[in-house]
């Protein structure tokens, strides 16, 4: 029982750390561009290479 509680807390803290890290590393700075970037096609460049 206590192990389970400890585990659940550990997981929660893990997510919290992931969240803090994502902000620190600037992942939330730009939420628009990546979505547009993925729609652009790259094929022409590869042919020329």
């Amino acid at each position, binding site marked *: 029982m206590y192990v389970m509680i400890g585990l659940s807390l550990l997981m929660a803290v893990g997510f919290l750390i992931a969240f*803090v890290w994502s902000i620190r590393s600037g992942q939330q700075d730009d939420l628009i561009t990546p979505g*547009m970037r993925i729609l652009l096609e790259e094929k022409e460049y590869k042919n020329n290479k």
Partner: protein
Amino acid sequence: MVELENPLIDTQTTCFHCGEICQDVVIKYEAKDFCCHGCEQVYQLLSDNSLGDYYTCDINPGKAPSKQNFDFLNHPHFRDQLISFSAKGISKVHFHLPAIHCRSCLYLLENLSRIEPSIVKSNLNFGKKELTLWFTEDKIDLGSIAGLLARLGYEPLIDSREEQGQQKQRISQQNQLFLKLGIAGFCAGNAMLFSFPEYLGIEAGNLKSLFGYINIVLGSIAVFYSGSDYFSNVWSHLKIRKLTIELPILLGILVGYLRSVYEVFSHTGAGYIDSVSGLLFFLLIGKWFQQKSFDFLSFERNYKAYFPLVISKFIQGKEQTCPLEEIEVGDHLIIRNQEIIPADAILCRGTSQMDYSFVTGESEYISLEPGNSMYAGGRHQGELIEIEIKKALNQSHLTQLWEQQAFKDPNHKTENWENFANKVGMYFTIILLNLAAVVGIYWFQHDPSKWQNAVVSVLVIACPCALAISYPFALGHGIRWMAKFNFFVKDIQAFERMSQVDTIVFDKTGTLTLHQDTKPTLQLVRDLSQSELNTIYTMVNQSTHPLSRQFAKYLREDFEVKSVDIESMQEIPGKGIESKSHGKIFQIGHARFTGHALVQQQDFIRSESQMFIRIGEERIGFIEFPWQNRAGVEYMLHALQANYEVYLLSGDKKNHAGTLLDWFPNENHYRFECSPMDKMEFIQNLQKKGKQVAMVGDGLNDAGALKQAQVGIAVSEDHLHFTPSCDAILQGKQLVQLPTFFKFAKFGLRLIKMSFVLSVVYNLFGLSYAIQGNLSPLIAAILMPVNSLSMLLIANVGMNWRGNRLKSYFKQAKGD
């Protein structure tokens, strides 16, 4: 030379690159039409580098290229400012590119390395319109990169150092709030989880106290880290003896938290940690939501942003470029056509037509001879001149405005202004504290075991979280909706001030009146022959002067003209254009240039918007481009008068106003020949009479008034254009919708007041339990989130409903 073949004048061909209607000569390349060689070159450049996909992402994605020279960026001053990081020969630089608008831009800019191999990598932030480049500094310099971007149609906007600093500060604040929000959410969620046994009444034995301790840890993080802003804000307000809405909120949170700590450690209960951290979470969501910022706009520009970044200076007889900051008294500067005078100076060489319209609102140009003095901010028209600086940059006539109190005090508008929340907050706090005291004393006398519990419950349950939540959501939505119609409000405080406005002051030149969009009137002594028309058209079409451009456009639209061969063509800056055709000299330009008698001008005061025509010895007449009222302005003024007092301020002379004056009630409501300082004082006087003033203006001459007024609205033709420091930026076309925007702001505040009444009902319900001293944690845990959530719901649904109505209204307005 002008190309003779010109077959496509009437059919409207659009440019393959930029989508503009090809004005004159259509350039054909690879079976595609282009409006100018610039666009064609961009196309060639892109297709040579196999970036042709640029044109497949969007239809006519390009912007006409600019030829601005960016070599000044190579000066060490700018290198330090722009390059953020440099190692192993690779440097990182940020450029702000306002022209970014579609997916094609993204495609092109992120593949810049294919065009210029010395650019290693490029990364675009679409929302901020900011491009980050990594490049090899040995192979290419900053000026060439900026030049390349400008050639592609993305002219970089170089921000001043202060603006960059402000932006950085804002971003770090945003990130910190986000972090606090996330952590509050984490604490609230987990605290609820650990309070579950308590909700359900399960006997958990030892676990109960363990859960209690875990909750205390979570609650401490939420209150002291996530809620830290409340502590500092309340403290700074108390120091100036001010009660704000934040005080009862903090009191509720703190009392709830301390009570919980006491209960857990004394094993008397489970506390309200879950409600407290949940409330904090909701409050922070609201704060985060209200922080809508328009990264691509600047509301804080001062005169420096209007000035050139570099100037040409004479140092020991040689011309050198140097940054603006390095100007000193006694320096000799070179000013070219269309450049701006950076500081008060004396004209040494050459003559000038000085255009002060942006600084003073005066629409007539002023002729200057050597020895005359000139003031900072004027735009020089004419030949190259040399000037000697007489006053330091920050002491000039123009910049004195920025030495006024309104500009120096950063809290000029926010601190001295009582908003609804703070007014309510003050009474709320007083009532709440009294109520808690009465309840405490009552129970202390009748049943001492209950007094603590009752006081705590009162403070926790009556916390005015509803206001704190419905406020940011309702107003945040308000800002977002307005932005959809090109009205950008700086923050929610400005939005709220908008709802209180009862007096609106307009600037004339550039705000209510416009040079563009008007049909000029032609006043001639005789009709012109077709070949004469063609010659005139060819001449004005080659000139870069704005009036020439409009003249050419007018001729194109109203006459059948075409470009012809002309023998010689000469543009004399500040005077006009001259050429020879069919053995006759054609002159178009200023009255003095063509030798028109000045007598003729007395009826036509607006001489600077006239172009005179002379063929041979014959003075034919002139074409006039009147400053005309913006379309729909009369209707708007009429509509506003029902609910507001309207005033007109202008730097111009009275006889320039024309029919506009009919729309103002009497002569106390307009004033002419105002200096920027006069305008500011005019607003101050209105405010002294207790008016809530909104100022609508456009140029630097309105900067003081915009700053002084409760709401300063800057009108801008496109938002890349310079706008002085203000509270809101409005697109010129939407000016006529001003009454609608004000109505919307009023609705927002009404909605908040309504939801406040509802939350008081909730609170009274909760209080009825709390006063009796038997508020169970379960009821507190249900009541508080329900209260917060219903506030959230009302704000969201209400504002979106009204916003959608606004949307259909605007659609209709467009259709008409």
